[in-house]
Structures are given as structure tokens and as C-alpha cells.
């Protein structure tokens, strides 16, 4: 598969759009369908497509395995830390009202941070799942 010209050129054409679409889904999730779970899956899908066509070694050069594996706890910590920040501001855990004087914007900031944590966790988990299965070999 690594010698197939059409796949290689097609993947190179499609990949930036997949990643941009993932970020669109992430940051437009307040207004349209989308959010951290979908964006994480789409971003991981882009990296997996790259790994399938150009080989797992090239993919690990672009997105190192150690980075991917550290993304998993980082996202959960970002999520949980957002809640702790809310607690220090005198609200309940994961209540974002203190982030900004305006109620709607405060909650938008909170949702943005939390969804970013979800994106990092889900993308890291799915990519490291693929690396783990593909790196097992025979």
C-alpha cells in the first residue's frame, strides 16, 4: 500500500482538511453539532489514516507515541482542574459561573475548557489504541 500513488497523494490532499474539520467540530460545538468527543475521534482518524498509508513509523515521527500516551491523562487533568478552579472561585465543582462576569460567556469558557480536555483524552486514547494494536506485530 505504501507504493500506491493515488492513495498517497489523495491522503496528503485530504489530511489537512480532516484536521481542520476536527478543530471546526471542536470549537463550533456550542453552535452546531459537535464537541470534544467527535473532534477527538476525527483527529485520531486523520492520524490513523496517515499511519495506514505512510506506515506506522512515519506516523510516530509526526505524532510521537510518548506524546500520544501523555495526552490521555493530560485531558482528564484539564477537565478535573477546570472543576477545581470553579471551586476556588467559590462555586460548586464544575460550576463555571465565576470565570467571567457575564453568565453566558463564563459558561462558554467553562464548556470550551472542558471540551478541550475531552478532545485531548479521546484523541490520545484512540491514537494510542491504534499504535498499541499496530505495534504488536506478529
Amino acid at each position, binding site marked *: 500500500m505504501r507504493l500506491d500513488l493515488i492513495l498517497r497523494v489523495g491522503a496528503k490532499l485530504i489530511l489537512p482538511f480532516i484536521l481542520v474539520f476536527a478543530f471546526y467540530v471542536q470549537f463550533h460545538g456550542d*453552535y*452546531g*453539532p459537535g*464537541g470534544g*468527543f467527535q473532534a*477527538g*475521534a476525527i483527529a485520531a482518524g486523520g492520524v490513523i489514516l496517515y499511519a495506514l498509508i505512510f506506515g506506522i513509523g512515519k506516523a510516530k515521527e509526526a505524532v510521537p507515541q510518548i506524546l500520544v500516551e501523555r495526552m490521555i491523562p493530560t485531558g482528564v487533568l484539564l477537565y478535573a482542574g477546570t472543576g477545581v478552579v470553579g471551586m476556588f472561585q467559590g462555586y460548586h465543582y464544575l460550576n463555571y459561573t465565576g470565570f467571567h462576569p457575564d453568565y453566558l460567556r463564563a459558561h462558554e469558557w467553562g464548556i470550551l475548557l472542558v471540551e478541550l480536555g475531552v478532545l485531548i483524552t*479521546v484523541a490520545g*486514547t*484512540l491514537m494510542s*489504541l491504534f499504535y*498499541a*494494536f499496530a505495534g*504488536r506485530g506478529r
Partner: protein
Amino acid sequence: MEQLEAFATHYNYFITIFLMVAGLYIVIARGNLIKKLVGLSLFQTSIYLLYLTPAKIIGGTPPIYDPAYATYSNPLPHVLILTAIVVGVATLALGLALVVRIHEAYGTVEEDDIISKDGQL
């Protein structure tokens, strides 16, 4: 006629139950561990359908607010199932990782072979 109407308005539920039972049948009747996991995910997706079917309101729109629309489908089951799908793939991958390790230890993924080999140990 009444029976027919009841059937038509509950068609989603019948298909849901059919998919659920198909998954259950695969899990019980097939010995291949990967096929069992396919059956489990079939079972799981039927549960998604079971949650999402009553959330739909005829005449409603997707739950994204727009001043031009008044009726929205229920967003709460959508949230529950949205997270369940991603958790489902994580647990599915865990099951498949166990299958890979079982294959490395036993050389097969057929349940009957594994049990007979356990008996020989």
C-alpha cells in the same frame, strides 16, 4: 387495524429488540471471541437505539436552538448515548486487547479450543 397501527408505531422498538436478540445469540452461540465482541457491540448499538427512539418528537427538530423553531427533540438521551459510544469503543478495544493476549498465549481464539487446552494444563 388497531394491531397494525400499534405495530407501525412500535416498529423502532421491534427492530431494536431484534438487534439486541441477534447480539445475544451471537454471544451465546458462537465460539470465536472476536465474533463474540462483534455480537456485544451489536447488543450495545441496539441500546443506543432504545434510548434515542423515545427522544424523537414527530415534528421536532434537532436540539439546537433557533428562534424559528419551537419543538425540539429531547437532548438528554443524546448526551448519554454520545458518551456511551466513545466509552464503548474504549471497552471494545480492551476486549480485543485481551483477545490478542489470549491468542498469544493459546494460539487460538476459539473458546472451545481454549477450554480444552486449559483442561490439559
